[in-house]
């Protein structure tokens, strides 16, 4: 590749990534040269500013036609833009939590990492949303994963944090290896790592034997990515990791990392297996052939997530299972693949981002106050701080999917998708609704604690950190706003993303 070729690329489409990578590097260097005693919190605020700058530059590219550089390895299409917004918004809110976070044993010695690792993780996610090549997808995935591994174990004198990181590294690496093995089959069959090239080759695939091989590849990739999404039966790591990691990291894993997981699933599944013919050109794509398997995993994920959450006494573990359950709901949309698939998934992740991060903000606050993460710590929250209790109440109701909240609209989109089409998925949708009712038990269990039970100590919450206030205001407002006026979201998508129709071009 000559220099001329390099400079001829439209590097502008990578501006958001450049901003993030530049600021991450800047923070690293600042961290090195700052005096030891100096409060590193300022680095977190710089990170937040960087994310907003990236968002603004991304917003500036909304109208642009899809473009790709570096031989199609990096493409900025409407899918990429839409999901990048989610990742950026999620990461910004997580950083607000992070600057308000205080660990018991003090994070002072390694506070710098705590901020820039969120940025590198975010960068990994952003690369995934925009990659048109298996290699860049994989690099993005690894960048995100490795950042998350370190973040999970960042409290290095804390036993649980260590356990959490250890489990995460081992499980995560195995999953990555399996995914990579699956990808190697695809490469072997098609001789390319470029998604579009792969798709072109596979569309013309005539040999049924190849279809079996592809089926195997599909299962391996899906299993590997299933780890990332914490889909059952590959969800075991999630509760332990969520429990041990510092709360902002848990929030990051459950929102940003999960969103990125769905992004890579969509990129690989839809563009490779969604077009790969089973028996010669024009026949059913493999993805549709495999629908039953995805359906089983979706159902298992919803059932296990919701049922096991009932038995938890630790709030972070409970939210781990709750986030497993939400992944299951989104997998329902993957199973049914309606014509609104992208919008459905995007909206659900948007709603989930706000509901979940808001809940984590309150968890972090209560944890800081009481020093533990038991659900019973929420007892009497209403008496201690009515505003916090009502905010948590709204977020929980949204997570449970009651009408008037964003969670409800997200679920409706999924249902409509499930009932439309030639073969309505009655069973899967019924499981989803039934498990939603099961989820009332544990979400309302927290409500019972907050509103009905007396508090162990009556001390009020004074001096709520500004970062948490920001997160709470944004998340509660958004959870209601998108529930009452969901057309704001759909109009935004329709105007700017043209129904994601450029996904496969």
């Amino acid at each position: 590749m000559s220099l001329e070729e390099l400079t001829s690329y439209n590097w502008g489409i990578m501006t958001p990534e450049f901003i993030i990578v530049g600021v991450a590097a800047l923070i690293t260097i600042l961290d090195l040269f700052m005096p030891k005693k100096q409060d590193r919190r300022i680095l977190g605020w710089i990170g937040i500013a960087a994310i907003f700058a990236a968002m603004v530059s991304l917003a500036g590219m909304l109208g642009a036609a899809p473009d790709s550089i570096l031989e199609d390895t990096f493409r900025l299409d409407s899918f990429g833009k839409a999901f990048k917004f989610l990742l950026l918004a999620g990461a910004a809110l997580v950083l607000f939590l992070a600057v308000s976070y205080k660990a018991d044993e003090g994070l002072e010695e390694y506070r710098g990492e705590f901020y820039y690792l969120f940025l590198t993780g975010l960068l990994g996610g952003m690369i995934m949303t925009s990659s048109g090549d298996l290699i860049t997808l994989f690099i993005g995935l690894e960048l995100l994963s490795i950042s998350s591994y370190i973040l999970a174990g960042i409290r290095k004198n804390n036993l649980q944090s260590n356990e959490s990181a250890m489990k995460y590294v081992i499980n995560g690496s195995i999953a990555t290896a399996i995914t990579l093995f699956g990808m190697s089959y695809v490469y072997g069959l098609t001789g390319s790592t470029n998604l579009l090239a792969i798709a072109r080759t596979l569309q013309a695939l005539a040999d049924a034997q190849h279809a079996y091989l592809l089926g195997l590849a599909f299962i391996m990739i899906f299993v590997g990515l299933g780890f990332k999404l914490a889909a059952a039966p590959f969800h075991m790591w999630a509760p332990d990791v969520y429990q041990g990691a510092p709360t902002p990291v848990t929030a990051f894993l459950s929102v940003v990392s999960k969103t990125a997981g769905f992004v890579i699933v969509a990129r690989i599944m839809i563009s490779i297996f969604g077009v790969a013919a089973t028996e010669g050109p024009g026949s059913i794509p493999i993805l549709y052939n495999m629908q039953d398997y995805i359906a089983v995993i979706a159902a298992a994920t919803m059932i296990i997530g919701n049922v096991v959450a009932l038995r938890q006494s630790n709030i972070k573990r409970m939210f781990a299972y709750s986030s497993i359950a939400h992944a299951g709901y989104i997998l329902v949309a993957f199973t049914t693949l309606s014509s609104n698939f992208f919008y459905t998934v995007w909206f659900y992740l948007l709603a989930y981002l706000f509901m979940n991060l808001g809940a984590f903000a309150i968890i972090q606050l209560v944890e800081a106050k009481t020093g533990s993460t038991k659900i019973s710590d929420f007892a009497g929250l209403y008496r201690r701080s009515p505003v916090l209790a009502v905010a948590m109440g709204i977020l929980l109701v949204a997570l449970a999917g009651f009408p008037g909240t964003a969670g409800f609209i997200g679920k409706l989109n999924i249902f409509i998708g499930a009932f439309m089409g030639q073969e309505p998925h009655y069973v899967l949708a019924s499981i989803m609704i039934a498990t939603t009712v099961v989820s009332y038990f544990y979400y309302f269990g927290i409500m019972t604690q907050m509103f009905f039970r007396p508090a162990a100590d009556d001390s009020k919450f004074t001096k709520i950190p500004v970062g948490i206030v920001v997160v709470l205001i944004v998340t509660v407002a958004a959870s209601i706003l998108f529930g009452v006026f969901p057309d704001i979201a759909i109009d935004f998508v329709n105007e700017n993303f043209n129904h994601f129709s450029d996904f496969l071009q």
Partner: protein
Amino acid sequence: MDLSFVLSILVFSPLLGIIVLAFMPKTEEKSIKIVGFLATLPALIASVGLYLHYLWGKDLSDFDVAKEWITFGGLQGTEAGYWAVNYELGVSGLTMLLVVLTAVVATLAAIASIYIKKEWKGYFMLFLLLEIGMLGVFTAENLILFFLFFEITLIPTFFLIGKWGYFEKEKAAYSFLIYNGLGSAVLLIVIMILFAKTGTTNIEMLTGIMNDPNVPISGDLKLGLLIALLVAFGVKLPIFPLHNWMLRVHVQAPPSIVMIHSGILLKIGAYGLIRFGMGIFPEQFETLAVLLAILGVVNLLYGAFLAFIQTDFKMVLAYSSISHMGIVLIGLAAMNEAGVQGAIFQVVSHGLISALLFFLVGAFYERTDTSLLENLGGMAKGMPIASGFLLAGGLASLGLPGMSGFVSEFMAFLGLFEEMPWIAAVGCIGIIMTAVYLLRAVLGITYGQAHRDFTGVLDLKGVEFVPVLVLVALIVLIGVVPSVLSSPLQATLETIMLGLGG
């Protein structure tokens, strides 16, 4: 004059009260109670306005509102109007009556909330939210909006029971939440299937589409959907095997909330069966008529026999509610004009009667700390006026001619005798049993043997007279001049009958 703003104001007016309450200090018991009460008045005035509008012979459709609200999928190129869920409110004769009933009972229940002892601020905010939900349920013109309001009633009720109820309140709140949650989950499935198949949730359009012989929706699917609806609303009504939660709620919730629960919330089930079950699936409804009649008779008898052996007056009334809801089913199963009219009459009449009885239960409990029949014996001595009203309520409930209960039972059975005389004949035992258990309970309380000394117990006083007098007056009014209900219902009934092919 453009009247389309009236319903929105009617439904959302309690919101004003919530906002005012939010800024009040939570220790001001008296002013909180007054604000809570006042906040129910705009809806009451507006609903009476609706009735007057009707009386003056004007069209109720003047009030219809439709505004664009949500688009689903946003599929480009779909027919306009489809895949959109609008904000649509409207009233017909039937829903107007239910709205008036709701507004009246809500205002009276707000008065009955004088008995609430703690955290009045939170109580009234939830109470008003509940009222928004109830008013919305009856005025919503599409299924999604209906479902939204339906669920809005769920959350405040959960807290109202769980926080302000009696001894086993949390258990009652949970069983309320889970039973009703399951019910609404089933309802949501039905709504989404209808939406996905037809592209609309507007009730009128759906009725048209589903009854159009050219629409390719199989009879089996329709039957399945109707059965699902029956389960969904059967939880609410409640129909026999699905009733357990409701007993707990009746016993554990504070009396003012039971007034609303028994008076209005149960009626949502009946309303749903009439409007959606009968309206959208008339043919399939016919095939289920015998089943419904049997379920109705089972409800009637089961409730009546168990009410007879209860020792707690609240339990008597809870089983009595089950029994009386059996009459609603019986009337619906008849599927003729008399039957359906009887069912609707029963809905309204039972709403008023049970509100009256539960208000009195609250008044007794306030003074004696008990609702056990045994302990309450001989109340006529200490509280002659309250006992008199209790007797009146009991007589109305057992269907004494001249009161609202009689008209509704009479018509419901008249309808069923025409269609299924044998089932109706069995059901008649229930009417006798109703008289037996109610007289046992009521007479036991008023003139029974006194086990406690009630001297010094004060009779009804001051503001407590408002609910009893209003309710008794309405009960007698309906009993003597049934046309206050039947004439607004005429148009609704004709539409339903047209759908049923009769």
